């Protein structure tokens, strides 16, 4: 503990150097954190509790909601298939299908069924009013935060204008970035009146293990219909929707790893400088009776503090950016937000700690193993 104080004091000896190193580490780790937080957001989007028990019925060979049109009447036939617990017809309207930073997704479904089928909890406002008013909408809390929406606000998008009746949270994270409306309202709202058609059906089944079998049964029903269907587990659906995103993320992760390497080089350089200018001081410490381990601890501690401190700064900056900007990246109607979770913070700390330790290792060993007499003779 006392030695830790000495490390802290020593970092203040060259404030400029410490500051530059911390800022350098912070910039690099900020990037690392942002990339990893997007990855965490993606994991969260994929990890919804209901994903395994939910199937999504889509127009065959369409993979953007804007091109999938299915007759609403299919819902009755789907409900009769054994194993199906419930089926919810959903109309999706969104501003664009490609990867985008500002995805706006409307989902329309019969209001009461919607509230029953989805694991949502209205945090503010009034679910009853949503059910009552034809142009009312429930807004996911992530979307509300992003657009600064409150209960009672009107929200216009294209020629869709809805009144915010409530803000909800959901056990399905991707839903928190969605505006839920009445089905009929959304069917009429687009440039083309699409009354009677929906984008997809969300089907709850009784047994997750039978997902494949039930999906096949649904597709069989409509194999020869004008609009054939393609039924997939929601997880597979999410996976394909976020393909672009995962691709970009995969690339960004390499940059993130590069950044950790930069952190390593930065810290190693600083600690090396710091230990080089203190060779004699360490010699004196040794004559006072300090052991090799003590010296190694001093040097390694410095490396760790620089790496961890800089990372904490980077983490803080990332948190600030995520909190204030509410950015999310959307793709094919699925929105993924940046999420900084405790596990991520822990991982950042571990990565930074490992980088710091690795960076400090050589200078520490060198300083500790230097013969006392030689050290004392250093200028």
């Amino acid at each position, binding site marked *: 503990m006392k030695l830790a104080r000495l490390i802290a004091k020593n970092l203040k000896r060259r404030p400029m150097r410490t500051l530059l190193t911390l800022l350098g580490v912070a910039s690099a780790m900020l990037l690392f954190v942002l990339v990893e937080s997007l990855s965490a957001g993606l994991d969260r989007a994929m990890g919804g509790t209901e994903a395994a028990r939910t199937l999504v019925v889509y127009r065959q060979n369409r993979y953007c909601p804007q091109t999938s049109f299915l007759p609403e009447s299919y819902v009755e036939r789907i409900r009769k298939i054994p194993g199906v617990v419930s089926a919810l017809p959903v109309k999706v309207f969104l501003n664009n299908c490609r990867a985008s930073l500002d995805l706006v997704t409307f989902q329309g479904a019969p209001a009461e069924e919607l509230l029953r089928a989805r694991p949502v909890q209205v945090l503010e406002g009034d679910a009853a009013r949503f059910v009552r008013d034809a142009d009312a909408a429930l807004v996911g809390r992530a979307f509300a935060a992003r657009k600064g929406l409150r209960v009672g606000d009107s929200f216009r*998008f*294209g020629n869709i204008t809805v009144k915010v009746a409530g803000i909800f949270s959901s056990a399905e994270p991707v839903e928190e970035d969605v505006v839920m409306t009445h089905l009929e309202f959304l069917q009429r709202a687009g*440039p083309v009146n699409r009354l009677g058609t929906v984008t997809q059906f969300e089907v709850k089944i009784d047994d997750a293990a039978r997902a494949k079998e039930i999906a096949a049964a649904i597709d069989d029903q409509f194999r020869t219909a004008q609009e054939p269907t393609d039924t997939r587990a929601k997880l597979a659906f999410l996976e394909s929707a976020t393909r672009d995103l995962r691709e970009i993320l995969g690339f960004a992760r390499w940059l993130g790893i590069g950044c950790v390497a930069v952190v390593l080089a930065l810290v190693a350089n600083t600690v090396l400088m710091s230990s080089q200018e203190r060779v004699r001081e360490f010699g004196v410490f040794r004559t006072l009776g300090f052991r090799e381990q003590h010296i190694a601890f001093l040097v390694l501690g410095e490396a760790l503090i620089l790496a961890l401190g800089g990372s904490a700064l980077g983490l803080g900056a990332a948190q600030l950016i995520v909190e204030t900007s509410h950015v999310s990246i959307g793709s094919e109607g699925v929105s993924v937000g940046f999420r900084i979770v405790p596990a991520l913070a822990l991982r950042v700390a571990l990565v930074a700690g490992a980088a710091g330790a690795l960076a400090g290792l050589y200078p520490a060993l060198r300083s500790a193993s230097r013969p006392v007499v030689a050290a004392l003779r250093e200028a």
Partner: protein
Amino acid sequence: MSTRTILSVLVLALAACSQGSESPPPPADPARPVAVLPASLRLESAPSAALSVVEVRAAANGTEVAVTGRVKDIVATRAVFTIADLSLKSCAEPGDTMDCETPWDYCCEDPARLAAGVATVEVRSGAELATGTIQTWNGLDHLKSVVVVGKLTKDDKGNATIIASGIYVQS
């Protein structure tokens, strides 16, 4: 080579390449000469009893009409533009959060309503279309309200074209 030379070469090189990466090469922007049009085309005041675009499309082929509408598309190299019925809603109306770079496209309107509410306006120079764009002539531009006087020609598909003899641009 002195440090200064190295530095300036570097700065220039980076400036040059960052320009390249910042934006894709701009499209070959064809020179947009404004059409030279007879003074008589300009109307000082709005003719009374102008029809709406929807009404004009119902009028008989070959009649002289006065029609009021909002400027929709403008051709870049000929004095031709389209007008939309004033009842149609453009994406430029206040409160719209949709990212619409060409609000005069009426992309949020029902296509069927749109089709029934648009007419083409052409300005001739002799037998030919006047060359050059009419954009900026007398302040004419997208979404401006205009009243056009001229001869209506219709084809068998119901498309209405007005050969303009006078145009009033509302300021």
